[in-house]
C-alpha cells in the first residue's frame, strides 16, 4: 500500500497558495504550500522585516528548537532577542524552501494529478529563482512591500543574491554569507557523488521508495557524509578528532574505528531521520543549476544593474566550498554597477560551516551592518 508520509508527521505552520506558480523548467504548480516561522513583531509600516534563507539541509526553525530533532534552531546564535539579527528590533521570517521536506511543497507533498500519492521523483525540477518566487508570494501575502533585509548562508546566500537580482526594489539590504554567484564544477561533482549514492541504494526503487514503505537510508547517509566533509576544514577535523581511535588503543581489527569515522556515521544516521531523499536530490540540483550571470550578456554585473540595495558579503578564510574568491567576484561585480557594498573575509579555521558556528567577528559585522542599514532606512 502507498505510504505517502513518514511515521510521525509534525504539523508545520503554513499557508497554501492556490494561484499557479510557473517554474523555470516550464512546468508549474497549480497550488503550493509554504511552511514558515516568524519571530519578533512587524512594525506599523511593515518596514522592519528580515527574511532568513536557509541552506541545503536547513529549515524554517531558525531560532527555536527543531520539532523533528529537538535540537536548537540552526541559527540561534545569530537570530534571537538581542542577537546580531535582533528579534526585539526586527520581524524575522524564515520559510522552508520549495522542494523541501519540512512542510513546504516538495517531492513528499501530495501529487497534483495522482491523489493519495506523493510527487516523488515526478516533482518538477526547481531552481533557486523558483524558491525565491515562492518566497515572494509569501512575503506579499504578509503584506510586506519591501524587506528590510534578506540574509542567508550557503544556499541561503544564493537565494539572497537571487532576491537582490529579481526584486531589487523589494530588498533594502542583502547579506549573502559564504555564498557564490554560481555553483562550481567541483561543488556539482560533490553533489553528484551524493546523488549517485542515493540512487545506488537498493531501497531507492528509482525514487518510489515511498510506495515500498522504505527509505534509502544508507545512500542518503553516504550523501550526507560526503557533503559533511566539504563543510568542515581539515584543521577543524584534526582539532576535533586527530587520529584518535574509538574504544581501542590500537587499530588491530577491522571492526575498530577512528573517531572521525564514527562521527561521520553519526552525522549520516541522524540526517536520514529528518530528511527526504527525493528532496535532497531536488535541492542539490537546484543549487547546481544556480548561475546568476546566466542570460546576462555582460556577465554578473548585469544581474545587479541599477540596484539600490546595500550589500554585505561575508566569506570565511578556510571555506573551500564557497571560497573568498567567489564572494570577491560578487563584490567586484557590484562595484561595476556602483552598488553600495561591504565585503569582509572572516578569519576562521572552521571551514564552510563557520557561518553556523560561534564566530564573534562575523556576528559583530552582521550586527553593525544591519544597524547601519536601519539608520539609513529610517528604522531608528
Amino acid at each position, binding site marked *: 500500500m502507498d505510504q505517502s508520509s513518514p511515521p510521525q508527521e509534525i504539523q508545520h505552520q503554513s499557508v497554501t497558495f492556490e494561484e499557479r506558480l510557473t517554474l523555470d523548467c516550464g512546468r508549474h504548480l497549480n497550488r503550493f504550500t509554504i511552511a514558515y516561522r516568524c519571530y519578533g513583531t512587524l512594525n506599523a509600516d511593515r518596514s522592519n522585516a528580515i527574511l532568513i534563507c536557509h541552506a541545503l539541509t536547513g529549515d524554517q526553525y531558525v531560532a527555536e528548537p527543531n520539532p523533528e530533532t529537538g535540537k536548537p534552531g540552526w541559527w540561534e546564535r545569530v537570530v534571537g532577542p538581542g542577537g546580531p539579527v535582533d528579534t526585539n528590533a526586527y520581524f524575522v521570517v524564515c520559510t522552508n524552501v520549495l522542494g523541501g521536506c519540512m512542510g513546504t511543497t516538495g517531492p513528499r507533498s501530495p501529487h497534483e494529478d495522482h491523489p493519495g500519492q506523493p510527487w516523488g521523483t515526478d516533482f518538477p525540477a526547481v531552481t533557486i529563482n523558483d524558491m525565491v518566487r515562492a518566497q515572494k508570494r509569501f512575503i506579499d501575502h504578509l503584506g510586506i512591500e519591501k524587506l528590510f533585509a534578506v540574509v542567508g548562508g550557503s544556499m541561503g546566500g544564493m537565494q539572497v543574491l537571487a532576491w537582490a537580482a529579481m526584486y531589487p526594489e523589494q530588498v533594502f539590504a542583502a547579506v549573502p554569507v559564504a555564498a557564490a554567484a554560481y555553483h562550481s564544477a567541483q561543488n556539482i561533482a560533490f553533489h553528484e557523488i551524493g546523488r549517485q549514492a542515493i540512487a545506488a541504494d537498493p531501497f531507492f526503487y528509482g525514487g518510489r521508495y515511498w510506495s515500498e514503505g522504505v527509505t534509502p537510508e544508507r545512500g542518503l547517509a553516504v550523501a550526507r557524509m560526503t557533503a559533511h566533509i566539504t563543510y568542515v576544514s581539515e584543521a577543524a577535523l584534526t582539532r576535533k578528532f586527530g587520529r584518535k581511535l574509538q574504544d581501542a588503543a590500537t587499530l588491530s581489527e577491522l571492526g575498530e574505528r577512528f573517531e572521525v569515522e564514527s562521527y561521520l556515521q553519526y552525522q549520516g544516521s541522524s540526517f536520514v531521520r529528518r530528511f527526504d531523499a527525493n528532496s535532497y536530490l531536488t535541492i542539490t540540483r537546484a543549487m547546481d543549476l544556480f548561475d546568476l550571470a546566466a542570460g546576462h550578456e555582460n556577465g554578473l554585473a548585469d544581474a545587479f544593474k541599477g540596484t539600490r540595495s*546595500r550589500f*554585505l*558579503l561575508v566569506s570565511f578564510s578556510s571555506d573551500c566550498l564557497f571560497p573568498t574568491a567567489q564572494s*570577491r567576484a560578487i*563584490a*567586484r561585480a557590484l*562595484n*561595476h*554597477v*556602483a552598488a*553600495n*557594498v*561591504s*565585503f*569582509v*573575509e*572572516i*578569519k576562521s579555521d572552521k571551514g564552510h560551516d563557520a557561518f553556523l558556528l560561534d564566530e564573534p*567577528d562575523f556576528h*559583530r*559585522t552582521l*550586527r*553593525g*551592518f544591519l*544597524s*547601519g*542599514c536601519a*539608520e539609513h532606512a529610517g528604522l531608528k
Partner: protein
Amino acid sequence: MTTQKKMRLDLALIAGMIAPRSRVLDIGCSDGTLIDHLFRTLQCDARGLELDMDAVTQAVGFGLPVMQGDADTDLATYPDGAFDYVVLSRTLQAVEQPREVLRQMLRIGTHAIVSFPNFGHWSLRLQLLLNGRMPMTKTWSRMWYETPNIHPCTIQDFFQLCKADGYKVEQWLAADDEGARAPWRRFPALANLFGEQGLFLLRKA
C-alpha cells in the same frame, strides 16, 4: 553606529574639500572615520575601500559601507564617473603603481583628493645630506628594507606628474604632520621645503 570620534586634522582638511551630499569613495579608509564624518555632517554617500581586513571588520561592524580590497587592483572594477570624489589619504606612496591608481581615481571620480607625506621636507633633505643615509622621521619611520612606502615623492614631483598626465590642480596645500595648514600655499618651492605633507584636489583638465 559609531560615536563621533576626534578626527585627524588632515582628514578634517579633506572633508573641507568635499561638497555636501556628494558620492565619495575613500581608498585606504582604515576604520572609516572620514566616511562616517562625511555621512553624518555632510549627508554624503560615502564608501570605503581598505586593504587591512581587521580595519574592514571594525568599520563594517560600525555600520559603515567598507569593502576589503586593494587600490592597485580593485579600482578598475568601478564604472566611469561613479563618484564625485575619490580620496586617497597618506596611501599614494604605498601603492605599487601610483600613476595608474591616480588615473583610475580620475576615471571613476570627477575629483581626486590625494594626500601624501612630502619627501622634499627640509629635515629629510638635511639628513640625507649630512648622514648620507635614508632619512628617518616620525612619518618615514621604517628602515628602507621594510618600509611599505615604496614610492616616496615630493610636492614638486607631484605637481610634475599632474602636469604630465593632464590633471588640473583645483586646490592644494601643504600641512605639517598633524595636518595643521602650513602658510606656503602660494609658493610650491617653499611648501616643498617646509610642508610635511601635501594635499591636492584634482580633476581632469
